């Protein structure tokens, strides 16, 4: 999406040369936000359809209601005395009442749009089968409860990986061809394996074999009493998940940033700056980092919002009580409300980020000019 923002704004000046800058900015912002909103609506509606399997899940729900009602009537001694027809009638009535209560009496197409509008207005409603640890059925509460562990784990590791790979790659691009550089380049294929894969290795070594770190979870049971010990315990549980993520993401991150910086440092204007005798630090800051800033910001922002979804498999492997695992549990018990709830928040976050990125681009990159009259480079 971000690349497109650049292309739009590069074409824009020719078309609308005369209008004042503010109007152009306003119009651009409006068009862009409407487009993003449409994207979100379509994406969320598709998710609603898929999470209900195009209405198939409603059939499952009806069958489940019927079964549970029949079971209840069979086990209740007061209904045993009734003749079979009368009992059947009572069962039918009860099934209809429950179907109406869960909205199952309306056709799925109508229901799907109700789902959509509720999801878009962030009225996430009640979960069907899941409860939060505090016992609530509010989807909002379930998500809020599982969010901190996910943000904590993936936020920490994303930040570590992002800055570590940025600084290491800057260092390597300065010392291109050194031993360290060659080591990182030759280790980069290790990133072909995802984080959960290294997680299994690390758990095998440090938890099963050496028995010095926990297998998974976020806190020991029972949790330690004092605050200091509690923090220490959580930190201990964090080592393996973060280690696994770093193992899988760092080398490829360093490799691609390094290549990226090297390409930019072979530009003519960098050679020119060197010839003028500028100190290396100044060259790096003004001639290499400055033009690559938009790319750096984009990848930082995308890394941050990817935190939201957590990682289903990663959290499952580590038994981490976060969003990803909740997502997986929701799918397993057909809890559409939770699935759609998590998805719609992600969609909004993505749309907002992309929108903000467009504006930030315009600020940091003088070439990107939202429909402005200045000549594009």
């Amino acid at each position, binding site marked *: 999406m971000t690349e*497109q923002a650049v292309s739009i704004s590069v074409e824009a000046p020719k078309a609308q040369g005369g209008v004042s800058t503010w109007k152009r900015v306003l119009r651009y912002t409006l068009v862009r936000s409407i487009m993003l909103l449409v994207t979100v609506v379509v994406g969320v509606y598709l*998710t609603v359809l*898929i999470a209900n399997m195009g209405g198939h899940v409603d059939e499952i729900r009806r069958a489940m209601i019927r079964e549970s009602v029949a079971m209840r009537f069979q086990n209740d001694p007061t209904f045993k005395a009734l003749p079979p027809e009368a009992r059947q009638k009572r069962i039918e009535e009860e099934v209809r009442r429950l179907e109406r209560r869960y909205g199952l009496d309306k056709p799925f197409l109508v229901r799907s749009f109700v789902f959509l509008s509720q999801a878009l207005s962030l009225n996430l409603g009640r979960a069907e089968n899941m409860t939060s640890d505090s016992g609530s059925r509010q989807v909002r509460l379930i998500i809020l409860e599982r969010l901190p562990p996910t943000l904590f784990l993936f936020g920490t590791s994303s930040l570590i990986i992002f800055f570590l790979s940025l600084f290491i790659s800057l260092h390597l691009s300065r010392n291109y061809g050194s031993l360290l550089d060659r080591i990182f380049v030759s280790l980069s*294929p290790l990133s072909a394996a995802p984080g959960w894969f290294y997680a299994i290795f690390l758990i095998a070594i440090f938890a099963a074999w050496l028995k010095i770190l926990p297998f998974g979870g976020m806190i020991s049971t029972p949790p330690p009493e004092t605050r200091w010990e509690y923090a220490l315990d959580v930190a201990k549980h964090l080592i393996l998940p973060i280690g696994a993520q770093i193992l899988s993401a760092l080398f490829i991150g360093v490799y691609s940033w390094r290549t990226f910086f090297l390409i930019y440092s072979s530009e003519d204007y960098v050679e020119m700056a060197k010839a003028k005798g500028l100190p290396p630090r100044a060259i790096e800051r003004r001639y290499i980092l400055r033009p690559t800033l938009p790319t750096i910001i984009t990848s930082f922002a995308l890394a941050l919002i990817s935190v939201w979804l957590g990682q*289903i498999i990663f959290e499952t492997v580590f038994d981490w009580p976060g969003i990803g695992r909740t997502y997986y549990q929701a799918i397993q018990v*057909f809890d559409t409300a939770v699935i759609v709830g998590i*998805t719609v928040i992600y969609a909004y976050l993505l749309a907002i980020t992309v929108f903000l990125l467009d504006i930030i681009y315009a600020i940091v990159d003088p070439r990107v000019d939202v429909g402005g009259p200045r000549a594009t480079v």
Partner: protein
Amino acid sequence: MLRGAWREIRYYPSAMLGLFIILVFVAVSIYTVVTIPYSEVVDLWRGGEAVWGDNPRLAAPEWVNYFRRTKLPKTIKMLSTDPDVERRQEQVDDNLWIDDTIYTFEFQYDEFPQDLAVTLEAEFETKAPYVSVILVRPDGEEIRLGDLSVKGGRQVFLVSQEEKIAQRLRLPERRDIVEAIFAEDPKAEEPVVLKGTYQLRIEATLFEPESTITSKVVVYGKVHGWAGTDHLRRDLSVALLWGAPVALSFGLVAAVGTTVLTMIIAAIGVWFGGWVDSIIQRITEVNMVLPALPILIMIGVFWTRSLVVMLFAIIALSIFGAGIKTNRAIFLQVKALPYIEAAKAYGASDLRIVFFYMIPRIIPTIIPSLVLGIPSFVFLEAALALLGLGDPVLPTWGKIIDEARVNGALLQGHYYWILEPTFALMITGVAFAMLGFSLDRIFNPRLREL
């Protein structure tokens, strides 16, 4: 350009190593599919005791003995029809025959066997043969393992489940029976294996002239084959071998399908421009909002776990990915090149330009990303298996990891079970990555000088 690439790739040792490993995997896959055809492996892997009964449970691979000071036993399997097994048959009177089978075996390992199983099969009209099983130890001691009549024609006798032996030997509480009968001192706190020549006598008494008895003795070891066994006594080598063709074909089909379709769609979008292009762009943006992995999980939970369906779903979800944007940027440059102008001038059709002029031009640049994409799909398949959504019938690497994890392989120290498939996945992934990175450097001239 492609021929030039081959000439150049030979100067990249990592590419050659990656290519070599990939070729080895291809060879293994072909060998596997030829020797164990698809239908056979499905039956084999789902077969129960009938197929795998003679394997030890949770046995480590044989090569672990090279790294151990105390050697783990291999499985010893003997049939009463084997030539070196001694038979003594004799008629006592009109209605009584004696048929003794004497199995002799060496046991020279440092660790105890896992179990001892005697399978008896008898044919008779009305009166079942009566059998006594006696173990003669190297020190000359005889242990009566059990007496039973072979009712129903077939009886399996597992020493570990015969509480009577423990009573007969007056073993302390909860002492392992199998260890006791193979120990120097059965009652010792820390039993030591009694090495030497054992004899297992199966003394059968037959009551009918036509009655016969055959038997099978299995002394279950603690190592098996080059890959070990799982909790259902299945030989992991079957699954490890079959994992190779599954992983390779899955990764290859998904990567090629995604890359080629993405390329075609991007080319069509750029060439026709206008609303075609903008529809493609919008679909790509919507696809970014859609959560790919959860959708795959939903398909697996709601609908089917079949590998082929998953494959198509993965391709469908990946076509409109980030690749469209990168391809589009390249095609926009290609579209402006003079030779396209020339083609248009002499009246080439739209589709001809797209498929014969634009797409061939960018094929070299997408080959590296294609190769690099393969491991990510291989790992995706493993990831789905790890969530319990692996193919219902086929053994794959991911499914072994999942089964090992679910059955507590790490907690109980069966490391081989989880490490073998992970190493296979790792090597495959790294091989493709090494080749892909080198190809990237060859095909992207900007990287070449770096």
